[in-house]
C-alpha cells in the first residue's frame, strides 16, 4: 500500500486507477457500465440498492462495486454468471413491490428500472403475493411529486438534501417493506435546488410537477445549451419537441436538465434556471415587427428597418447623436454585443451604451450555484462595452432622460420595469422622440417603444456567453425562431444595412473572430475550438 | 287517294318511323346496362328509384336524360363553335333519315285506300341508304376537327378511315343481295323474299346470300362504331372524336350509335331476313305447308307483319348488343386487315359467284 495508484483487472482488462477509487469508477474508466441505482458520483455512498454486485475473485460472495475500493491485483468480473444472476435476482427484488405504472409514469422511457430490466433482468416473475400499497401522487414540494409505490429506496434524494442542498427535507420512514420515502413532517421540499432530486431519482418515484403528463420523453430530442438564468452559465440539456406539437401545450421546449460540467455546475442546476424555459415560448413573445403608433401591424422586416433608419437619421440630424442612448441587455451573446458596439458606437457614434443594473436586494450569491447577477453575460458586457461607453449604468441614462438630455433610446432585449418600476418607465418614455426595441418579448418597456423588432431567444440562436468567472461558453441553435423573429445578430445586421453603415456579419463565428482580435479577454480563443469543446466543458481563456 | 288521308298517313308513317328507332334506341341504352349485367351474372343498374321502385332500372334512363340536359354544354375556346354544335346534329340526322326508305310493313287498306307502309318508296332505296350512311361520317369527322383537340381529331380520322373501309364492304354485299333478288327498291326486296322454296322454306336473303349476310352484318357493326369496332370513340376511355363533347351533344352522339344499331338491324332484316315477312303468312292468312290454313283479315295480317318486323329488328339489336358485350376490341391494324384483306375480297368474290349463279339460273 501507500502507492498513489493501483492496478486491477476488470473483465480481463487491466486498468490503473488512483488508490481509493471504487471499483464502479474503475470499470467506468474502462467503459464498462455496472448497473446501479443508489450510487451517484456526487453523493456519499449508501450501498442500499445492491444492484452493482460484481464477482471479485477470492471474495466469498458477490460484492457491491460502488463501495468496494479497488485494490492492487484485484480481479473483477462484471459479466460472469454469478454477477448476472446476482443482478437479475436483485432487480426482481427491487421490482417486487413496484407497481405496473409505466403507462402513466413520466419516467417511462428514461427509467433505470426499465432499462436494466431489458438489459440485465428479463426474468419470469415468481411473485405470488400482493404488492404493498403506498401513497401515490403526493405533492411534497412546489416542483416535485412523490409516488412512494414506485420508490426503490435508493436514498439518493435523501442524500442530496442532506449533502448538496443541506436543507434536510427528506427521509426514509418505517421499516421493512413498509419503508417509505417522505418529507419530514411540516417540511416541504422547497429548497432552490429541489428539481435535482427528480433528475437523480433513477425511477419514477420523484417526478417533476411541471413536466407532469406534458409529453412522453421518447418524443423529445435533446441539445446541449447554456442556461441564461444568471451569471453562472450552468451547462444544461434542452429537451425539445419538433413533431407532435399537440403535446406540451404546443410548445417546443419541454424542459431543461442539468448537463455535467465539473468546472461550472457539477451535476446540478437551480430551480429558477430549470423553469426559466417557460418564458421562452410564452404568450408574451414578440412574433412580428411592429410599429406601435399608426399603421403598426406587421410591416415586415424590410419596411420596418427602412422606417427605423429614416426616423433615426432624422432624429440624429435634428437633436444630435448625444441625445441617443442604447440600453443593451447583459444577457446578449458576446457576438451580439460586439455587433451592437460596431453598429451604435463605431457606426452611429452613440457613446451612451448602458447595460448595468445592480442586483435587487433579494438577489444574492449562494454557496452552490445561484448568482445575484441575473444576467448571463455581464462579464462579456464589461469587456466589450466597458472601455468605450460613457454611461454604463442604466440609472444614468434614465436620469438623463428625466433631465431631457436624452431624447431617444434603443433598447436591446431588456425589460427595465422589474428594476425601475413600470410607472417610471412609462413616464420617461413618454418624453422620447425616438424609441426602438429589439427583443424577444412584449413587456412594459417594449410596449412603450415605437418600433419593435422581434428577436430570437437563446434556444433559437447560437453564440457564446461569458460567465461571471470569465469562462466563454458556446451554445448552439436548438429550434428555429418563432414567427418572424430573427437572431439579434441578424436584426442588427439588417438595421446596419438599412442605415447604410459597415456591414455586420450574421455569422456568429465570424463576429467572434473579429471580437477575439480586439478584446483582450477573448484573445487566443477560436470559435471552432469553443464549438468543439462545448459539450463536455468549455475553455477558460488564459 | 284523297289529300287528307294522304297527308295524315304520311305524317303518321313519318312519326312511326321516327318514334320506332328512337324508342328502340332508348331501350338499347337501357339494355346496354341491363343486358350486360344479366350476361355477366350481375344485377345491373337498380339504385335510381321512382316511388320506391327501380322499374327494372328504367328510372336510370330518365335520370340520365335529366343529367344530360342540365349539364354544362361545353365548347372548347379554340374550337369551331358552329361546326362543333352542328356535328352531333349531322350525325343524328343522317342516321334517322335513312329510316325513310325502310319498309316497316306491307300495306294497310283504310277506307278503300291502300297505304304502303314505307315513308318513301324510292326505287333506288338501297342506294339512298348507302348514301346517307356514308354522309353520317361527316358528323364524326366534323366533331373531331372542330374540337381543336389532337385526340378528338385522331378519333375523327379513325372514324372516317373505318367508315370508308367498311362502307365499301357494305356496298359490295348489298350488290350481292340486289343481284340475287333483282331489285333496288326496298319494298320490292322484301316482297321478293315472300316466296318459299319447296313450298315451306322461306326464300329469305340469308339463304340466297349466306356469306353476304355475314359480311354485311360484320361491316354493319363496324358502321355503328361500337365494340369490337369502337376505336373512333374509344368508348371505355372516351378518347375519340367526342372527347370535347358534353351534356346533350354528347348524348346525341351516344344516341346516334344506338340509332345506327337499330338501322343496321333494320337493313339486315330487310335485306336478309325477309323484312316484315312472316313465313307462310300471305295476304289472306296463314297457309300451312302441310295443308290447311287460317283465314285472317288483310289489315290484321299487315299489322302482324309490322310486329314481325319490329320483333326481327329487336332480335338483331339484341344480337349486336350480345356481340358488343362478348368480344374484346380489335386492334386498329386488325380492324384494317379485316376490312381490306378479308371482307372486301370475300364480298367481291360473293358478287362474282352470285352474278355467275344468277346468270346460269336465268
Amino acid at each position, binding site marked *: 500500500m501507500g502507492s498513489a495508484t493501483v492496478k486491477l483487472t476488470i473483465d480481463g482488462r487491466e486498468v490503473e486507477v488512483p488508490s481509493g477509487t471504487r471499483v464502479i469508477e474503475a470499470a467506468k474508466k474502462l467503459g464498462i457500465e455496472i448497473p446501479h441505482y443508489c450510487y451517484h458520483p456526487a453523493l456519499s455512498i449508501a450501498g442500499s440498492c445492491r444492484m452493482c454486485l460484481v464477482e471479485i475473485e477470492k471474495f466469498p460472495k458477490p460484492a457491491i462495486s460502488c463501495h468496494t475500493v479497488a485494490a492492487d491485483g484485484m480481479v473483477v468480473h462484471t459479466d460472469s454468471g454469478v454477477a448476472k444472476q446476482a443482478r437479475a435476482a436483485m432487480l426482481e427484488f427491487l421490482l417486487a413491490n413496484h407497481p405496473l405504472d409505466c*403507462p402513466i409514469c413520466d419516467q417511462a422511457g428514461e427509467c433505470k428500472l426499465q432499462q436494466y430490466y431489458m438489459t440485465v433482468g428479463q426474468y419470469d416473475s415468481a411473485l405470488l403475493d400482493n404488492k404493498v400499497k403506498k401513497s401515490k401522487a403526493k405533492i411534497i414540494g412546489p416542483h416535485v411529486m412523490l409516488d412512494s409505490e414506485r420508490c426503490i429506496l435508493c436514498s439518493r434524494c435523501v442524500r442530496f438534501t442532506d449533502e448538496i442542498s443541506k436543507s434536510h427535507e427528506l427521509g426514509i420512514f418505517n421499516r421493512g417493506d413498509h419503508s417509505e420515502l417522505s418529507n419530514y413532517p411540516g417540511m416541504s421540499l422547497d429548497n432552490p435546488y429541489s428539481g435535482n432530486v427528480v433528475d437523480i431519482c433513477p425511477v419514477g418515484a420523484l417526478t417533476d410537477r411541471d413536466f407532469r*403528463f406534458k409529453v412522453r420523453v421518447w418524443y423529445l430530442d435533446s441539445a446541449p445549451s447554456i442556461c441564461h438564468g444568471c451569471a453562472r452559465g450552468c451547462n444544461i440539456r434542452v429537451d425539445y419537441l419538433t413533431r407532435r406539437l399537440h*403535446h406540451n401545450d404546443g410548445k417546443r421546449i419541454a424542459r431543461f436538465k442539468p448537463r455535467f460540467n465539473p468546472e461550472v455546475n457539477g451535476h446540478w442546476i437551480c430551480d429558477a434556471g430549470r423553469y426559466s424555459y417557460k418564458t421562452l415560448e410564452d404568450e408574451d413573445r414578440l412574433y412580428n415587427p411592429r410599429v406601435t403608433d399608426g399603421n403598426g401591424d406587421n410591416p415586415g422586416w424590410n419596411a420596418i428597418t427602412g422606417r427605423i433608419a429614416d426616423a433615426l437619421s432624422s432624429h440624429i440630424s435634428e437633436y444630435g447623436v448625444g441625445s441617443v442612448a442604447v440600453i443593451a441587455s447583459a444577457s446578449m451573446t458576446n457576438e451580439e454585443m460586439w455587433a451592437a458596439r460596431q453598429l451604435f458606437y463605431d457606426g452611429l457614434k452613440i457613446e451612451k451604451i448602458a447595460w448595468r443594473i445592480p442586483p435587487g436586494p433579494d438577489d444574492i450569491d449562494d454557496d452552490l450555484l445561484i448568482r445575484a447577477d441575473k444576467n448571463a453575460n455581464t462579464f462579456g458586457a464589461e469587456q466589450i462595452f466597458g472601455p468605450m461607453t460613457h454611461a454604463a449604468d442604466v440609472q444614468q441614462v434614465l436620469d438623463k432622460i428625466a433631465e431631457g438630455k436624452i431624447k431617444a433610446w434603443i433598447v436591446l432585449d431588456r425589460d427595465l420595469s422589474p428594476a425601475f418600476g413600470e410607472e417610471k418607465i412609462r413616464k420617461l418614455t413618454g418624453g422620447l422622440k425616438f424609441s426602438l426595441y429589439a427583443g424577444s418579448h412584449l413587456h412594459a418597456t417594449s410596449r412603450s417603444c415605437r418600433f419593435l423588432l422581434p428577436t430570437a431567444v437563446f434556444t433559437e440562436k447560437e453564440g457564446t456567453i461569458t460567465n461571471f468567472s470569465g469562462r466563454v461558453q458556446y451554445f448552439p441553435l436548438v429550434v428555429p425562431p418563432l414567427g418572424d423573429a430573427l437572431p439579434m445578430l441578424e436584426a442588427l445586421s439588417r438595421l446596419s444595412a438599412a442605415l447604410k453603415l459597415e456591414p455586420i456579419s450574421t455569422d456568429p463565428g465570424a463576429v467572434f473572430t473579429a471580437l477575439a482580435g480586439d478584446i483582450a479577454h477573448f484573445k487566443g480563443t477560436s470559435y471552432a475550438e469553443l464549438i468543439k469543446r462545448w459539450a463536455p466543458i468549455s475553455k477558460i481563456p488564459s | 287517294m284523297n289529300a287528307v288521308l294522304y297527308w295524315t298517313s304520311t305524317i303518321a308513317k313519318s312519326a312511326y318511323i321516327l318514334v320506332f328507332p328512337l324508342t328502340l334506341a332508348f331501350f338499347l341504352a337501357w339494355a346496354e346496362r341491363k*343486358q350486360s349485367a*344479366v*350476361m355477366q*351474372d350481375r344485377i345491373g343498374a337498380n339504385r335510381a328509384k321512382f316511388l320506391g321502385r327501380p322499374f327494372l332500372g328504367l328510372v336510370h334512363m330518365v335520370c340520365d336524360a335529366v343529367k344530360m340536359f342540365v349539364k354544362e354544354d361545353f365548347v372548347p375556346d379554340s374550337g369551331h363553335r358552329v361546326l362543333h354544335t352542328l356535328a352531333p346534329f349531322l350525325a343524328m340526322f343522317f342516321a334517322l333519315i335513312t329510316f325513310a326508305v325502310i319498309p316497316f310493313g306491307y300495306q294497310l287498306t283504310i277506307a278503300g285506300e291502300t297505304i304502303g307502309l314505307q315513308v318513301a318508296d324510292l326505287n333506288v332505296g338501297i342506294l339512298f341508304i348507302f348514301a346517307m350512311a356514308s354522309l353520317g361520317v361527316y358528323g364524326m369527322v366534323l366533331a373531331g376537327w372542330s374540337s381543336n383537340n389532337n385526340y378528338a381529331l385522331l378519333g375523327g380520322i379513325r372514324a372516317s378511315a373505318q367508315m370508308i373501309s367498311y362502307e365499301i364492304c357494305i356496298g359490295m354485299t348489298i350488290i350481292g343481295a340486289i343481284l340475287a333478288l333483282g331489285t333496288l327498291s326496298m319494298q320490292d326486296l322484301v316482297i321478293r323474299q315472300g316466296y318459299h322454296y319447296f313450298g315451306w322454306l322461306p326464300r329469305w336473303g340469308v339463304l340466297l346470300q349466306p356469306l353476304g349476310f*355475314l359480311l354485311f352484318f360484320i361491316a354493319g357493326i363496324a358502321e355503328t362504331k361500337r365494340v369490337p369496332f369502337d376505336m373512333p370513340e374509344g368508348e371505355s376511355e372516351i378518347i375519340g372524336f367526342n372527347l370535347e363533347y358534353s351534356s346533350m351533344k354528347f348524348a346525341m352522339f351516344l344516341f346516334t350509335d344506338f340509332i345506327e344499331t337499330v338501322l343496321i338491324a333494320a337493313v339486315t332484316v330487310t335485306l336478309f331476313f325477309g323484312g316484315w315477312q312472316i313465313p307462310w303468312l300471305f295476304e289472306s292468312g296463314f297457309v300451312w305447308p302441310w295443308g290447311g290454313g287460317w283465314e285472317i283479315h288483310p289489315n290484321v295480317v299487315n299489322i302482324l307483319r309490322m310486329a314481325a318486323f319490329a320483333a326481327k329488328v329487336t332480335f338483331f339489336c339484341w344480337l349486336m348488343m350480345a356481340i358488343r*358485350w362478348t*368480344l374484346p376490341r380489335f386492334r386498329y391494324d386488325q380492324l384494317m386487315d379485316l376490312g381490306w384483306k378479308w371482307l372486301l375480297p370475300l364480298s367481291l368474290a360473293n358478287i362474282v359467284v352470285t352474278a355467275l349463279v344468277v346468270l346460269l339460273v336465268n
Partner: protein
Amino acid sequence: MAVQNIIKVAARRREATLGFWERVYIFEVVRGLWITTEHFVGNLYYHILKLFGIIKVHPLTPTIQYPEEQRTLAPRLRTLHRLVRREDGSPRCVACMMCETVCPALCIKIVAAEGDKPQIEKRPKSFDIDMGRCIFCGYCVEACPEDAIRMDTGILDIAAYSREGMVLDIDTLLSLQPAQRRTDKEVDELQRRLLQ
C-alpha cells in the same frame, strides 16, 4: 431489341397454339356468343322468377345489395376503432401514448391530463383518430397496455365531407359499440362462403 424478341416469341407462341378454325375467328365468336347467351338466358329465367316473387334470391348472381345487404364480417376483421370504458363508465385509456407512438400513419393524437377521479391518475383529455390517415394495421390495439382501444365495431363505411370530418374525437370513439358477436354457426357459414 429485347422487346422485339419478346413480341416475336409471343407471336410465334400464339400462332403455335391457335389452330386454323380458331384463327378464322368467326367460329370462336359464335362459341363466345354461345357462352354469354347461355348466361343471359339462364340468368334471365331466374330474374323473371324473382320479378314475379316466385324466388327470393337469385341463385346465380353473387351481387350483394350494399348497403341494404352486407356481407358477414370475419370475426377478426379490423374495423373502425372504439375506446373501451371501465366499469364506472370512464375511458380505460390512461394516455400512455403507446398507440400514438406505434402508429405508422401518425393518425392518433392524444393529449393527456390529470385524472378526474381519485383512482385515475392520468386520463386522455382528447383522443383524436384521423380516419383519413389510418391504415387499419391494428398496431394501436396490439400496443395498448390497458385494452382500451379495439377495432371491433364492424364499421367500415367511414366517410365525411371534409378532412376534418374524418377526425374522430374521444366522445365519438367512446360512444361506439362492438359489432354483434357472431355465433359459431354464423362463422362456419361465413368461412364456407369465403372458401367457395
